[in-house]
């Protein structure tokens, strides 16, 4: 089987744009009437031609999600361990050239944050860092996972891409999933937004899910940052990536996120703005394309949007998130990676879910299930 790089290189954004331009309501209706949908159907469903079909897409998406995931919604919280970073990313608050105070949590501080998150009820945690190999390299991560593991049923990370052996090391310590977003699948645009640091290596990042698949990780999260480029084309690449990964690494589960670029102090405005209707269209299209993929919605989105979007295909949500190291207990005021929008805490989100007929699921994993010697 081809690697994803060669698949990607066969599809220029212009070629996808041409394909997108040729989509008519006929394609959309055909895609809607099918039960197993392919990449062409996905493209039809995210096309402007599908906009008038939004309600029917939403209904089908809800039905499929209920069927596969039940009346359940997983809750998780991110925990930022460090904002030190050697990369320049034009859209990120932790960028090397952004003059902010840098902080990496000590063991005592991590445990303080853990206590605050446990108090809030969380059992699934996502550890986040910037990329600073000397301070938050794989040794630090391994140590942090070992420190945190006794308190949480499920530990995920969103950190710099690692080598396969490094992932295997972390999995042995109890790591369950890894989120690694390509940001944009446009090679040139990627270069513009990542001019300096290890992250500027497009291909190494692109092949990260392959290394994770070979390490037999339980779950990989992929996605693109919406706002850097045409969201339709970047999302189409994301769906292509998902399809490739599913076929190649069949023991791994996948999740997709669709973060829209949020303002941060000193940051840039999105090049392309995606409105709420379009985001709903994208969420439903992902669900119709893949009934089993997990779809995650963060606190970047507004309260109003989240109140409704949870019913349309989403399977996990974060709540009360802090995007700065120490944000829950240690140092509530330090600079955050991006501004969150929905500031409601887990209790309120939990109530929202219950009011909408969902059971909030705090625990859907157990360390005993990935026993390693």
């Amino acid at each position, binding site marked *: 089987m081809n690697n994803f790089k060669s698949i990607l290189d066969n599809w220029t954004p212009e070629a996808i744009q041409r394909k997108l331009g040729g989509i008519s309501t006929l394609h959309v209706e055909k895609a809607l009437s099918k039960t197993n949908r392919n990449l062409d159907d996905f493209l039809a469903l995210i096309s402007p031609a599908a906009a008038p079909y939004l309600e029917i897409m939403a209904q089908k998406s809800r039905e499929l999600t*209920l*069927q*596969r*995931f*039940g*009346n*359940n919604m997983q809750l998780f919280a991110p925990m930022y361990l460090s904002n030190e970073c050697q990369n320049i990313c034009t859209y990120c608050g932790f960028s090397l050239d952004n003059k902010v105070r840098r902080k990496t949590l000590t063991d005592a501080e991590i445990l303080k944050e853990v206590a605050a998150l446990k108090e809030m009820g969380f*059992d699934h945690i996502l550890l986040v860092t910037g990329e600073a190999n000397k301070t938050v390299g794989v040794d630090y991560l391994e140590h942090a996972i070992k420190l945190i593991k006794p308190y949480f*049923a499920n530990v995920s990370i969103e950190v710099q891409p690692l080598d396969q052996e490094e992932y295997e090391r972390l999995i042995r310590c109890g790591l369950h999933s890894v989120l690694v977003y390509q940001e944009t699948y446009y090679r040139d645009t990627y270069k513009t937004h990542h001019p300096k640091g290890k992250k500027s290596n497009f291909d190494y990042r692109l092949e990260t899910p392959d290394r994770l698949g070979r390490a037999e990780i*339980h*779950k990989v999260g992929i996605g693109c940052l919406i706002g850097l480029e045409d969201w339709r084309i970047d999302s189409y690449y994301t769906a292509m990536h998902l399809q490739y990964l*599913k076929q190649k690494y*069949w*023991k*791994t*589960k996948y999740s997709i996120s669709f973060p829209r670029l949020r303002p941060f102090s000193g940051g840039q405005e999105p090049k392309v703005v995606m409105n709420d209707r379009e985001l709903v269209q994208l969420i439903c299209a992902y669900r119709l394309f893949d009934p*089993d993929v997990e779809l995650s919605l963060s606190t970047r989105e507004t309260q109003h949007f989240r109140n409704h979007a949870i019913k349309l295909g989403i399977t996990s949500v974060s709540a009360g998130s802090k995007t700065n190291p120490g944000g829950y207990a240690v140092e509530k005021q330090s600079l955050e990676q991006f501004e969150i929008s929905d500031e409601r805490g887990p209790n309120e989100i939990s109530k929202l879910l*219950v009011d909408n*007929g*969902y*059971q909030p*699921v705090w*625990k*859907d*994993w*157990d360390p*005993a*299930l*990935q*026993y390693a010697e």
Partner: protein
Amino acid sequence: MLTIADKIFSSRLFTGTGKFPSYSLMKEALEVSESELVTVALRRVDIKNEQDHMLDHLAHERINILPNTSGVRTAKEAVFAAQLAAEAMETNWIKLEIHPDPRYLMPDPIETLKATEELSKKGFVVLPYIHADPVLCKRLEEVGASAVMPLGSPIGSNNGLKTLDFLKIIIEQSAVPVIVDAGLGVPSHAAQAMEIGADAVLVNTAIAVAGDPVGMAKAFKLAVEAGRLAYECGPGASTIKANSSSPLTEFLSYE
């Protein structure tokens, strides 16, 4: 009456606990179903917390807990998880679910056979979830499975008895109870499984995701009872109408 290991069951409807809108609805539905064996995923239970919400809602004298190992990918992981589940849920019964494929949750026959053998030796009452594979069922029986749980169609699909022909062979050959698990989407699917002689069925998604889970639990209860009764009554063979003219056997009319 159905007997598995040393336990006698008066209900032949087993149920799951996933996907319900709330624990209170789950509790109500399970009560109405009259189910006596209820699966609980280890992944959903907080075994460190003695007052786990889900287990609290299942505290009923009629209900026996059947922990499952959903999430493991190998026999080794399953054996470890089963031991922890036994300790936490205070039972030596285990539903083995070993599915390395996280999408269709297809059971791994090789790992399941290995784990069944090992856990049976350790004194567990093992109920393995497997494909409707007659040979595998006999092999599982030989290594100590207390019942077999072949699938009707993929978990959560609500597609009914797609494996009907193989289920019939399994039921015919099996020396241990056969519980048809997975894919039963509507009560008629459950009734059909009972009519062909299944000892019990396990239903989760179809009840949990129904518009009215409590009403649907009742519908499944009735369907399972009706199907069983029909099986016990011995349905008449479906007849082929004789053709009035018998060109090939007419010559025998002198007899």
